[in-house]
């Protein structure tokens, strides 16, 4: 480029005021974020949910009245809330020791075991369902084994009566505990170890140190994970459908709005779920308001990690191995299914074969699926990183009025049934440049991003809440603009939380089913999950071929997560506190 004096002058003038420019860019990004939320969350959802308020062509609240007039719905609401509470409590009980072990101890094999703890993140739940039925059917593998061993005389009904509820809760916990575990580990990593040491010198017993010092400081991180688990368990459709627990809100909604003759009361129930989500979220937030504390400084992280021998780590091994074993059960069952050539009412298949792998490798389905999944999930993760960090920053530092409302709004995607957002997109963007009918790539990436935005916002917000604003102010005194500071000071400080958020966003985007099902209509746009799903529905060898592709999918996600850990090296180590 030739540079004349005429062009150089304005350039210089601009450069002389980088601070204002940075601020301007920052607010532009913020404005764009808000516009994106309106365009891709508020608008499409309202185009669907307005049906809840229209009866016979007029505005009406009839459907809400009808909703409460039917005691099936009230039972469903009650059951769903109970599932949410139970799943959250159990996730907490399970994740807390796991996170403490990861953050505070070093022992042989820790890296491998803590890595394996994340296995639920590499398995699409519906793929796990294939194995679930094989194992827990009345004459499934587990009962057959117990019968064979003479431990029981007649098959145990795993999914009868009250057991169905606990089956749902158990499956939710096994699927969701990594969310609490990751957030809690990041929160513990942020706590200055000298805070506990000080208490140790005062003679505060370990449990009281935990209760009075560690817990209050890790609470924002815990809350970040727990609220997601609660809302997820509250609104999860797949699991109750799988075990046949009909009396939950998501199943009721699903039944009403996927009925060939859709029932608008279903949309009223969606509105109610969103309201409940809002209320629960705000309630939980108010109860922890003013209770998030930043770390003024951080001590030497290494001193917090206690090295112990394999022998004294025995109880840790027991807990880790038991958790991993339970979490790996679906993976193993899928692997076995993909290899079985004949499996009829025996504990394990009678014959094994590699045919199903040959079958899928001869088609271009895996390749297209892998390519699309990586593209969609990777791009959506980057969008989440940008939007999520931005929103969290605005919310935590209260840069705009009604920041709390923005915060709650980002939680809405968690409460939305998959079909509502996806069809909202179809309705809103048909015959526009984004029409999924022509090419769904853009909308799929956006849908993935919007749906996983809560994980990133919560993770980033937890990190920011633990980081002192003084550190930013210090940078500001050097004349750094707010957004320059954000980039150079704040983001590096919360990198552990951002990485945790990215991992969750990426992995759960890779496992997406509902958006892909509706938006990725043509097979050249299929992500891996939809390819697996399409095969799964096939009669004959469908579930076996789907399992084989499911194994390919798990391998891919495992490689991605391992790759990320290699690439991030120390950062990841900081997160998992194992290296």
């Amino acid at each position, binding site marked *: 480029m030739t540079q004349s004096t005429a062009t150089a002058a304005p350039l210089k003038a601009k450069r002389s005021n980088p601070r204002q420019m940075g601020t301007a860019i920052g607010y532009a990004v913020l404005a764009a974020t808000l516009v994106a939320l309106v365009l891709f969350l508020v608008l499409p959802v309202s185009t669907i949910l307005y049906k809840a308020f229209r009866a016979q062509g007029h505005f009406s609240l009839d459907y809400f009245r009808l909703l409460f007039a039917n005691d099936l719905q009230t039972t469903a609401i009650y059951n769903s809330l109970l599932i949410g509470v139970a799943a959250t409590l159990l996730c907490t009980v399970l994740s807390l020791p796991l996170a403490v072990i990861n953050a505070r101890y070093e022992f042989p094999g820790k890296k491998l075991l803590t890595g394996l703890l994340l296995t639920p993140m590499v398995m699409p739940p519906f793929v796990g369902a294939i194995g679930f039925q094989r194992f827990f059917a009345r004459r499934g593998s587990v009962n057959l084994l117990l019968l064979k061993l003479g431990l029981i005389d007649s098959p145990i009904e795993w999914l009868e009566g009250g057991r169905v509820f606990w089956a749902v809760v158990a499956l939710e916990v096994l699927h969701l505990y990594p969310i609490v575990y990751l957030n809690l580990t990041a929160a513990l990593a942020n706590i*200055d170890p*000298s*805070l506990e*040491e*000080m*208490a*140790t*010198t*005062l*003679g*505060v017993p370990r449990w009281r140190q935990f209760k*009075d*010092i560690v817990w*209050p*400081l890790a609470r924002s991180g815990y809350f970040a994970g727990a609220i997601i688990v609660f809302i997820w368990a509250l609104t999860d459709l797949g699991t109750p459908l799988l075990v046949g627990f009909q009396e939950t809100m998501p199943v009721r909604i699903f039944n009403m709005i996927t009925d060939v003759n859709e029932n608008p009361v279903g949309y009223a129930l969606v509105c109610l779920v969103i309201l409940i989500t809002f209320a629960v979220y705000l309630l939980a937030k108010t109860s922890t308001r003013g*209770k998030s*504390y*930043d*770390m*003024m*400084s951080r*001590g030497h992280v290494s001193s917090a990690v206690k090295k112990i021998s394999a022998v004294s780590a025995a109880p840790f091994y027991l807990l880790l191995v038991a958790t991993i074993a339970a979490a790996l059960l679906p993976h193993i069952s899928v692997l076995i299914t993909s290899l079985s050539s004949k499996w009829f009412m025996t504990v394990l298949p009678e014959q094994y074969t590699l045919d199903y792998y040959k079958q899928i490798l001869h088609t271009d389905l895996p390749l297209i699926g892998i390519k699309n999944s990586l593209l969609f999930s990777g791009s959506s993760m980057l969008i989440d990183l940008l939007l999520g960090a931005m929103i969290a920053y605005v919310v935590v530092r209260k840069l705009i009025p009604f920041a709390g409302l923005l915060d709650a709004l980002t939680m809405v995607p968690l409460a939305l049934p998959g079909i509502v957002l996806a069809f909202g997109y179809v309705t809103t963007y048909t015959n526009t440049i984004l029409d999924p009918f022509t090419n769904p790539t853009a909308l799929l990436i956006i849908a993935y991003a919007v749906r996983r935005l809560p994980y990133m916002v919560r993770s980033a917000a937890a990190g920011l809440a633990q980081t*002192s604003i*003084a550190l930013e102010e210090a940078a500001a005194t050097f004349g750094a603009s707010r957004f320059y500071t954000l980039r150079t000071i704040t983001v590096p400080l919360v990198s552990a939380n951002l990485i945790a958020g990215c991992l969750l966003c990426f992995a759960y985007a890779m496992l997406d089913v509902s958006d892909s099902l509706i938006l990725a209509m043509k097979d050249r746009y299929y992500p891996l999950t939809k390819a697996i799903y399409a095969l799964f529905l096939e009669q004959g060898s469908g579930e076996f071929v789907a399992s084989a592709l499911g194994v390919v999918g798990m391998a891919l996600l495992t490689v991605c997560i391992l790759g990320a850990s290699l690439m991030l090296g120390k950062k990841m180590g900081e997160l998992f506190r194992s290296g």
Partner: protein
Amino acid sequence: MEVTFDHVSKKYGDVLAVEDLNLKIAEGSLHFLLGPSGCGKTTTLRLLAGLESTTSGRILFGGKDVTSLPAAERGIGMVFQNYALWPHMTVAKNIDYGLGLKRLSRVQREQRLQEALELTQLTRLADRLPGQLSGGQQQRVALARALAIRPTVLLLDEPLSNLDAQLRLEMRDNISRIHRQTKITTVYVTHDQKEALSMGTEVSVLRAGRLIQSAPPRQLYHHPETPFIARFIGETNLVHATYRGDDDGHHLFECGFGHLLTKRPKQVLSPGQAVTLSFRPETISVQVDGAARPSVNPLRLVLEHLTYLGESEQLALRTSDQQILRANIFNPPEHDLQEGTVVVCNVDPEHILVLPVEHDLSSGT
């Protein structure tokens, strides 16, 4: 409470952080552990606190072996370098939290809290959260919290390192005052020799995990046992020299730029033995008026650089073998010394210290 280290060592893997430490800390003293970063002083303090366990050796509190006693049962109060204030508790709660674990009546507890607040002049800030306090105030909270439990030994880990220079001076006085008032045996870790010299009743200098010398500040300054200490405590000129024998009640040393005579040899020397000579900048006298006076160690040096500071002048002088010696002149008379000219100096043989040769003089500064 008298504190004793008896052959204490601490290893991290293969790294020896503290090596065979033997030290007695007198009851009621304000004892400094001084050394450059990485010398093992913080580890020593943490061993004392019971936050780390010794690899070998014993730690005694007033004759009682506390080596395997947990931190809580040692009766120590600790101030961390970053203060380790609990950000979710108010000043009062931070201080009171430790008291809550002692068997104290409500009245006693309240009384102790008020005492600690008054001692550290924090009474007005009792209801604030740490995040709302200045650095100095936070430091005082940390101190109050450690004092409130009436420890038998108070441990301070670089308590002033996060403060600005002005505040640091203020806090030095504060801590000294509190120590005088409470008479608690205090162990104070720092890398700042001025802090150690100005406040300490005794100073232990550590280097690479080893105790080099332990002495009251004056003795440490005037009688360092190694070149390292001579350099670390205050400023000094170190010169390699060889002992050549006695001459008229003086010891005669040969160095790169001539001969130096010293008095009061501390150790028995044999001719040809290599030593390090140390003399402080203020012990070099410069003849500013040019008049020749008889002297024992006359030196002709080139004035390399002169820094005028009002009440004193600092001179950098180059020897014939290109070593730089530093001299300080206090209350200098008016003169017209020019940089680059030769000046006549004298080093008082009384003030030249004969120290053993150290392998690496450059390290540890």
